[in-house]
């Protein structure tokens, strides 16, 4: 397989290298080719990861390490570094790093891309590959006392995990008590009003100022990847994505799986279904951003703020529309490979008018939020110039979505790597240059308006759609068995950023490897960059502005 030929006008600016040019660039670092459906793949020497990544980043412009996938084969281990360009995400390349079956070690890419830190820790945790030169290689999702690596082949799942409480690291252990210094160690979470789920921040304070903060995740880990690997492509995987980012962003998540699986199995989606998908996805985005606004107000204003209830009210209206559309309020399970499960609810007129009512009142609501929240001087005092995330740092950490766009990075997969019906519609990508908590909030609020524009155009299209052309699903075989040894990595723009799925087919009806690229996982990694040196309230605000969902971070 070769690179897709980009056909959009924006991509002209970014010079694209052919696979052969890339091979020439990498020279003798490459030992083999292992192309994926989405990108050329180069198998490189396990001790040349940094050299390879840095050449691709510096000289070929692949500045976005989207995901690190690790997996085990019968005869080897393998880490795949999925690289993209922030300027043109359709230009992709996969760096495949094999590792020895008996002693799986390869070089860490952390020195080139900071985001590799957490991704490689996860690979170590779940698969068991060790990364040389990694600054802090320890488990990330599972407890530090865990025995074995659950996604490796020889993992014995029946072996009881016996770890007594004293074996766990004590956060109050002596090494935090430094007689010389004035610092104080503070556990924020896992049970704390502002951690948006079960997140644990190990914080070191000097008075009220934060010297260091380290997120400790994994409390909500459910091994979603393993669950997807034991489900069939056609029917059994689709319900799971709803449970990653469960803040009503379900359809956006479902689309990530649908897009990857449809490209893997070469399924075309009827245009009518694409319009419905686009409309539903943008409704989910509004619901998710409303909740982000609501909880951010909770973090900054205090827990009896009117903004919270107002935003929840608006979210409720979208939620009603989604309920009409999908029959569900949270776990939609509405997409099918090749389309959606059913057509718009009857009577269609009622659904359309309800949707239009919502769209009509939305500008008023947004105006009210601007009056109540963003125009408030105390709010501006609290959020402007706090939680600074410079664009270069954001890219280094693989931050995407509103977090990246709040730092002025003009990156949105809906436009840059078009799918669904987005490229047929008239809307804009929102960016703000402030790089602070305020900008990230503003991006979300403006994106709500853009989403409303998209929904309105979809409703217009759907209203006039001829009755005999309303095909909601393509003809898809009951059982899908993609070709053996085909691999694909595909991403969509979910509410929090780039949500990607990597799948490897082995000729059966279930994926041999299913890897989720969670935007929250990468975004949360930037927290120490924003928080160090700030006050506790700013850390809380920065965390709120990242808008993480722990269900997606931990999967």
């Amino acid at each position, binding site marked *: 397989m070769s690179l897709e030929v980009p056909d959009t006008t924006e991509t002209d600016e970014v010079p694209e290298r052919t696979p052969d040019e890339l091979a020439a660039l990498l020279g003798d670092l490459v030992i083999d080719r292992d192309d994926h459906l989405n990108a050329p793949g180069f198998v490189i020497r396990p001790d040349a990861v940094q050299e390879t990544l840095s050449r691709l980043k510096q000289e070929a412009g692949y500045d976005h390490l989207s995901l690190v996938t690790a997996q085990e084969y019968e005869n080897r281990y393998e880490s795949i570094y999925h690289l993209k360009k922030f300027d043109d995400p359709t230009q992709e390349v996969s760096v495949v790093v094999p590792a020895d079956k008996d002693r799986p070690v390869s070089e860490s890419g952390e020195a080139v891309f900071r985001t590799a830190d957490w991704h490689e820790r996860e690979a170590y945790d779940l698969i068991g590959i060790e990364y040389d030169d990694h600054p802090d290689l320890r488990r990330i999702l599972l407890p530090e006392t865990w025995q074995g690596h659950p996604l490796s082949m020889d993992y014995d799942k029946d072996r009881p995990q016996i770890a007594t409480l004293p074996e766990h690291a004590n956060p109050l252990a002596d090494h935090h008590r430094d007689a010389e210094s004035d610092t*104080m160690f*503070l556990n924020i979470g896992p049970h*704390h*009003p*502002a951690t948006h789920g079960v997140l644990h921040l190990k914080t070191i304070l000097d008075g*009220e100022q934060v010297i260091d903060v380290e997120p400790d995740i994994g409390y909500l880990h459910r091994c979603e990847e393993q669950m997807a690997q034991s489900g069939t492509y056609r029917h059994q995987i689709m319900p799971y994505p709803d449970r990653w980012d469960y803040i009503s962003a379900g359809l956006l998540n479902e689309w990530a799986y649908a897009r990857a699986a449809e490209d893997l199995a070469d399924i075309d989606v009827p245009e009518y279904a694409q319009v419905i998908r686009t409309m539903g996805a943008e409704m989910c985005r509004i619901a998710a951003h409303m909740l982000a606004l609501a909880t951010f*107000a*909770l*973090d*900054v*204003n*205090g*827990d*009896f*703020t*009117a903004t*919270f*209830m*107002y935003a929840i*009210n608006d979210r409720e209206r979208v939620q009603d529309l989604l309920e009409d559309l999908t029959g569900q309020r949270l776990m939609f399970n509405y997409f099918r490979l090749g389309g959606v499960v059913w057509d718009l609810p009857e009577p269609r007129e009622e659904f359309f008018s309800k949707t239009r009512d919502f769209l009509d009142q939305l500008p008023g609501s947004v105006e009210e939020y601007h009056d*109540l*929240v963003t125009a*408030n001087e*105390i*709010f501006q*005092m*609290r959020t402007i110039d706090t939680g600074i995330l410079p664009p270069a740092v954001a890219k280094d950490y693989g931050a995407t979505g509103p977090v990246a766009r709040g730092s002025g990075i003009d990156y949105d997969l809906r436009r840059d790597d078009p799918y669904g019906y987005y490229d047929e519609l008239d809307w804009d990508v929102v960016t703000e240059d402030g790089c602070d908590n305020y900008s990230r909030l503003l991006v979300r609020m403006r994106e709500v308006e853009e989403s409303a524009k998209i929904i309105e155009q979809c409703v217009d299209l759907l209203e006039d759609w001829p009755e005999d052309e309303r095909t909601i699903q393509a003809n898809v075989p009951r059982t899908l068995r993609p070709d053996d040894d085909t691999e694909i990595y595909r991403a969509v723009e979910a509410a929090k950023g780039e949500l990607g799925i990597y799948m490897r087919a082995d000729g059966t009806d279930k994926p041999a490897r299913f890897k989720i690229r969670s935007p929250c996982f990468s975004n949360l990694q930037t927290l120490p960059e924003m928080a160090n040196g700030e*006050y*506790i*309230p*700013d850390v*809380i605000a920065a965390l709120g502005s990242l808008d993480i969902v722990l269900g997606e971070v931990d999967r």
Partner: protein
Amino acid sequence: MGTVQLFPEFVSETLGLSGVLGDVVGSLVAAAVVGNIVLAFTGVAGPWAKRKITAAFTDRIAVDRIGPFGLLIIPAAAVQLLAKELIVPEGVDRPTWDLAPLVLPASALLGFSVIPMGRLGPVNLQIADPEVGLALVFAFASIASISLVMAGYASNNKYSMLGGLRAVAQNLAYEIPLIVTAMSVVIFAGTLQTSGIVAAQSDVLFSVGGFDVPTWYAFVNPFAFVLFLTANMAEIGRNPFDIPEAPTEIVAGYQTEYSSAYFVLFYLGEFVHIFLGGAILAVTFLGGASGPGPESIGFIWFVVKLWGFFLFTQWARSALPRVRIDQLIEIGWKGMLVLSFANLVLTAVIVGVIA
């Protein structure tokens, strides 16, 4: 001012007692009545009014299941809160930890002893009227910070500690502007006696269409009123200055480790402090118990002003973001302090030159 009969004197006279016995019995009865009035306000405010008011601001309904308008939630909540287990964490510093929840409501209730709450029929609801009344009430109210520090320090919890430290920093930063602004009122009134300050606000400032606008200091010096109101919000720790407990930042600050009856005492203390803040505001700027109608219903006006202030605090809580600790200190020391002294000097000059 000796013409007005105070509440304890009224009681002893009605009972026909005199001398020391009359003083003691009269004071006890009067204190019990005033204390219970304030506690009753708190009882209504805490479990019911606060919920209803916040709900009205945030598009909700709140308690409406038990009794008319959900009013029976008050006894239900009382039973529920007191029936909870009192959890004493390991390593707390007793008896400091036990005393802190008593000091907070006590300090606020003491403050009410010198507040002229106005007349209800023949009764003048004021327990004592010393020469230094206003200074005394500030002194009583300030004891509250000691309670918060005690709780923060004794709880053996880092969040409590942070909350206690924040409380001290906040009180230091705002007590001074508060008192300096109150002094400008004293310059106007020429007395520290609370009844005297109220009496000085009973003249007519000007008349609009037959309606007399009184010389309440809120009308005479609106600038000082706004300053005082802001400092007062910080003093009682309400939004946007609720940082000693700031739930989304430091869990619940100094009261993190308190449960059951101790928690109730803290909660109670906070509410009594809100009402005391309202009472001080009413006395110094809103003409105390004065209002339209005969003097004998003054108490009703006083209650209206107290609840008006309470409503204001809840409104602020629903609408305003919370400032950060360093911003709070900055506003206090660099802003409020300067403004309050400017106000004081200006007032002194105006009063000295004109009056």
